[in-house]
């Protein structure tokens, strides 16, 4: 072993012995550092996953999605979708596009309801299912376990399923060539893909060939540039082709689409944009985008929390190490006298903190592995720590190693410089108390670091409070309709079932706990469709795209939506189904007519007539968004949901009875139901997750901060033992002594609060601005959060302070 090896071995040995000799000190540091690192590991895994979306494709840098922006009368809507003609144009008009494909958006494409599949005489369930054209796998190179990418979606009635579905349907037998029936179409399995390592915004369990649709339907698709039926993806031959593509899309809109718009006599326009594939996951600005998309700020926020936690743990180390410097001063003096250079001592202290960081990392790794299932449960993902170590990109591993090194460096560097600066003359003479000499001015820095810790702690506590208040507000604020005890049965697309709808309704109504039943294509909390409406003058009408609810006569009464003008749909007017519109107040205001009840309207779904009623606004989507204009028409062709209003004390029994009735009519599909308020609450899943995570993390932050405070107050009291002893002998009361100890620390927490409050106020205001409907910030929450932090800090210091109070002053003085 060379000289440096010897030294390092010496330091490591010493670090271990010191830990054993002073277990409480080592424990504070190890608990802090390993908790910090554990959270860091978990959050890193999460961040790596989020940033990894759609980087799994071989040519991901060349793949783009074509998004359409529609502008009617100045109302601009940005969609993630595009029309059939657009993908056809991509395929044929642009030589730089190597491949282009379209994947449809269907009612079962975003796992809202699930769909029933028949294999021979057995019923199975698919979570999500949609269609794509034959070139899909040319753009997205999913790994095929069975079948091949070239031919999988070529023939009509072909279907590609994932390995999980294949296993569920066919067990261990090959799936290729097997038949399965969805609604009335029988598909042949032409491929099985493995999605396990694929992290993409494309969510489907099964993908059928687009040409399964009859030619007449496809013909209809080609007639309309405005009909946004799915998502278009293009793969360029070269990365650089994308740079000039915007101009070409403008050219397409101007030369091809605009003349068509003129021809169909509509006052509107389409703009096309190409969006890099890797941007999609963090883009929340487009309508009808993937439900897996997330907010980048939300992801980054957790990155900050992870760094904060590490910082707080690192501060503990720094503070305790410098506070204990008195105890180590003698060792430093001896080493210097024995010939150590300052750099060697700096290396020694850095070495110690590195050793500790490394041990903490090993503990953290085990803790992270143990807590990963809970963390996954909390954030609704299926993460694995191996992503950090075995990812294709080395970046996560590099960041991790850097973090551990940095943690060791950051924690050790300051103590190393302070401690190694001690002069042996000052520390080796007996009777000299180095605490009184100038070199321990690190005390000021220690105070600053404690303040920093509590700024973060107080900030986290208050943020948790605000997030919980906003969440409660969204869950409890009047929605403008009644969602309690409304059971929602998912109505399969089955014409014979639809034909029986009145019989089903009546039978369900016979259950005594059932108050009302309503059939509709939309419900609050579910995605609504959007449609083009021609409004006003029949010769040159205005064109508007407005959200559409297809409902029945009972809908408004069941949900207790208030009528404010005109009338609702009524059975006394048999023509309502083809001539009547009801709108919400937002729509009436948006259309801007002085008397909305005289406005003529026409929509593509065969309804042409007048607005007959205006209902009050209600929150049909989450409170993130303002209440948008909404038009209601009557159900005529199909339904998606059967809403059943209950008044029951025994829900499960009532639900079972309704289920029995349902299954008498429908044995071909799974009986799917949910409750409207659960469904509505699901829209706040992100906030709910954020709240849980915030709660846990602020708990950890405050725990680690207090651990540091505990250690620091112990040392501070130890340092002042003599002073306290003298004061006691001179007659200081316990209250005086207590005040003496508490004052210093509580002042620091107070200062932290004063700095933290305005910062958190600003950040929380910014966060709340993301909600169209939000709580007002209440100063009491801020004071409350601050008070909680004060209280916890107070309790922590008190544990140590009471020890000092109980001590006999004679012992303290003898000690000198």
């Amino acid at each position, binding site marked *: *072993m060379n000289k440096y090896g010897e030294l390092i071995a010496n330091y490591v040995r010493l670090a271990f012995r010191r830990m054993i*000799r002073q277990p409480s000190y080592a424990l504070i540091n190890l608990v802090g550092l390993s908790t910090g690192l554990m959270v860091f590991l978990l959050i890193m895994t999460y961040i790596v996953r989020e940033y990894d979306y759609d980087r799994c494709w071989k040519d991901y840098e060349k793949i783009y999605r074509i998004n359409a922006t529609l502008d009617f009368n100045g109302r601009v809507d940005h969609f993630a979708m595009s029309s059939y003609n657009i993908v056809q144009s991509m395929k044929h008009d642009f030589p730089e596009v190597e491949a282009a494909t379209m994947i449809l958006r269907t009612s079962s494409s975003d796992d809202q309801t699930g769909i029933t599949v028949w294999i021979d005489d057995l019923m199975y369930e698919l979570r999500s299912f949609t269609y794509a054209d034959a070139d899909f796998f040319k753009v997205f190179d999913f790994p095929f376990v069975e079948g091949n990418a070239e031919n999988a979606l070529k023939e009509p009635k072909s279907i590609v399923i994932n390995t999980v579905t294949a296993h569920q349907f066919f067990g261990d037998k090959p799936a290729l060539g097997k038949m399965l029936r969805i609604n009335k179409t029988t598909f042949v399995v032409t491929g099985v893909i493995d999605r396990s390592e694929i992290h993409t915004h494309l969510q489907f369990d099964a993908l059928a060939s687009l040409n399964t649709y009859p030619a007449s339907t496809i013909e209809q698709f080609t007639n309309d540039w405005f009909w946004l039926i799915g998502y278009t993806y293009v793969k360029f031959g070269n990365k650089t082709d994308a740079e000039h593509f915007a101009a070409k899309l403008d050219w397409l809109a101007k030369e091809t689409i605009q003349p068509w718009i003129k021809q169909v006599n509509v006052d509107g326009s389409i703009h096309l944009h190409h969006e890099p594939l890797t941007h999609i996951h963090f883009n929340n600005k487009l309508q009808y985008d993937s439900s897996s998309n997330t907010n980048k700020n939300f992801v980054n926020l957790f990155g900050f929390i992870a760094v904060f936690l590490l910082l707080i743990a690192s501060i503990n180390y720094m503070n305790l190490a410098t506070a204990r410097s008195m105890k180590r001063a003698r060792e430093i003096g001896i080493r*210097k006298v*024995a*010939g150590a250079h300052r750099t*060697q001592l700096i290396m020694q202290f850095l070495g110690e903190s590195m050793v500790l960081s490394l041990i903490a990392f090993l503990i953290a790794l085990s803790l992270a592995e143990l807590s990963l299932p809970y963390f996954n449960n909390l954030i609704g993902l299926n993460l694995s720590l191996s992503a950090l170590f075995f990812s294709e990109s080395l970046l996560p591993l590099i960041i991790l190693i850097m973090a551990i090194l940095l943690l060791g460096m950051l924690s050790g560097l300051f103590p190393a410089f302070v401690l190694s600066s001690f002069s042996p003359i000052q520390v*080796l003479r*007996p009777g000299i108390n180095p605490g009184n000499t100038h070199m321990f001015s690190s005390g000021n820095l220690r105070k600053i670091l404690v303040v920093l810790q509590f700024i973060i702690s107080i900030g986290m506590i208050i943020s948790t409070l605000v997030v919980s208040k906003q969440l409660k507000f969204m869950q409890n604020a009047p929605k403008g309709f009644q969602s309690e005890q409304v059971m929602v049965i998912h109505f399969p697309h089955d014409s014979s079932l639809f034909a029986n709808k009145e019989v089903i309704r009546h039978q369900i109504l016979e259950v005594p706990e059932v108050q009302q039943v309503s059939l509709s294509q939309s419900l609050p909390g579910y995605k609504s469709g959007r449609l083009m409406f021609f409004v006003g003058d029949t010769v040159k009408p205005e064109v508007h795209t407005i959200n559409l609810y297809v409902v029945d006569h009972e809908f408004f009464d069941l949900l207790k939506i208030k009528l404010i003008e005109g009338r609702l749909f009524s059975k006394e007017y048999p023509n309502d189904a083809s001539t009547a519109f009801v709108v919400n107040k937002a729509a009436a205001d948006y259309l801007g007519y002085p008397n909305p009840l005289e406005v003529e309207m026409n929509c593509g779904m065969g309804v042409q007539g007048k607005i007959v009623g205006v209902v009050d606004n209600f929150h049909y989507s989450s409170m993130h968004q303002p209440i948008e204009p909404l038009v209601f028409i009557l159900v005529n062709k199909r339904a998606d949901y059967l809403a059943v209003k209950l008044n029951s004390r025994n829900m499960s029994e009532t639900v079972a009875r309704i289920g029995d009735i349902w299954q008498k009519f429908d044995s071909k599909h799974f009986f799917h139901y949910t409750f409207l308020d659960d469904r509505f609450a699901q829209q706040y899943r992100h906030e709910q997750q954020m709240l849980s995570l915030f709660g846990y993390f602020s708990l950890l932050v405050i725990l680690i901060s207090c651990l540091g405070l505990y250690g620091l107050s112990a040392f501070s009291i130890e340092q002042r033992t003599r002073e306290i002893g003298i004061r006691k002998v001179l007659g200081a009361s316990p209250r005086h002594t207590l005040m003496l100890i508490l004052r210093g620390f509580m002042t620091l927490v107070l200062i932290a609060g004063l700095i933290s409050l305005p910062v958190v106020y600003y950040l929380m205001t910014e966060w709340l601005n993301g909600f169209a409907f939000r709580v007002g910030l209440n100063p009491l929450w801020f004071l409350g959060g601050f008070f909680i932090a004060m209280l916890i800090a107070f309790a922590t210091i008190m544990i140590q302070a009471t020890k000092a109070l109980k001590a006999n002053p004679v012992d303290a003085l003898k000690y000198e």
Partner: protein
Amino acid sequence: MIKAEKLTKIFRTDEVETTALNAVSFEIKRGEFVAIMGPSGCGKSTLLNILGLLDNPTTGGYYFLDNEVSKSTERQRANLRKQNIGFVFQNFNLIDELTVFENVELPLIYLGMPSRDRKKRVDEVLAQMQISHRAKHFPLQLSGGQQQRVAVARAVVAKPALILADEPTGNLDSAHGEEVMNLLNDLNVNGTTIIMVTHSQRDAEYSQRVIRLFDGQIINENIKKSFV
């Protein structure tokens, strides 16, 4: 070996200026055993720190092994120190977390001596100090006398030409104190120069020469034994 020329050390705080040493001059030859005596606060320890290259004088010249070192940097002093000077303190100053063996070994590690040579040398010194049986113990498991023997072992392990002892028996009872003084005497007989600060007249008896300090100045320098 050592030549001090008008060594002066002034300590300054915000308001007070204290002259710890005031133009002190003397010479110490190789192989001498010199005791420095004087009341508390007379500047003994300040002088010892300067002689031991732990501190620089404010003014004056200090020649150590014919090198003028009064203006040396900390690094230069550390290098000279670790090769030539061993220290013995009143309160032993052993590192509690290191074993007896490791404490004695420390100067050799900083000298960069290979491990095998180190082990041999440490074993030799521990045997010489009659403390080999305690090699694996930690300082707190030893008596004061034993601790000071370890400290002496550490001071001599690198075979320094000079040993500086700062009240080496101050924390010991008379029997243990005598043991340590005998050790120092043996070292001196074998050629090591020793400078010792002490309050004890008995300990001073072991030296050949006593330098008496008062208020930072030498008031008396008497040679007690013939030094040949």
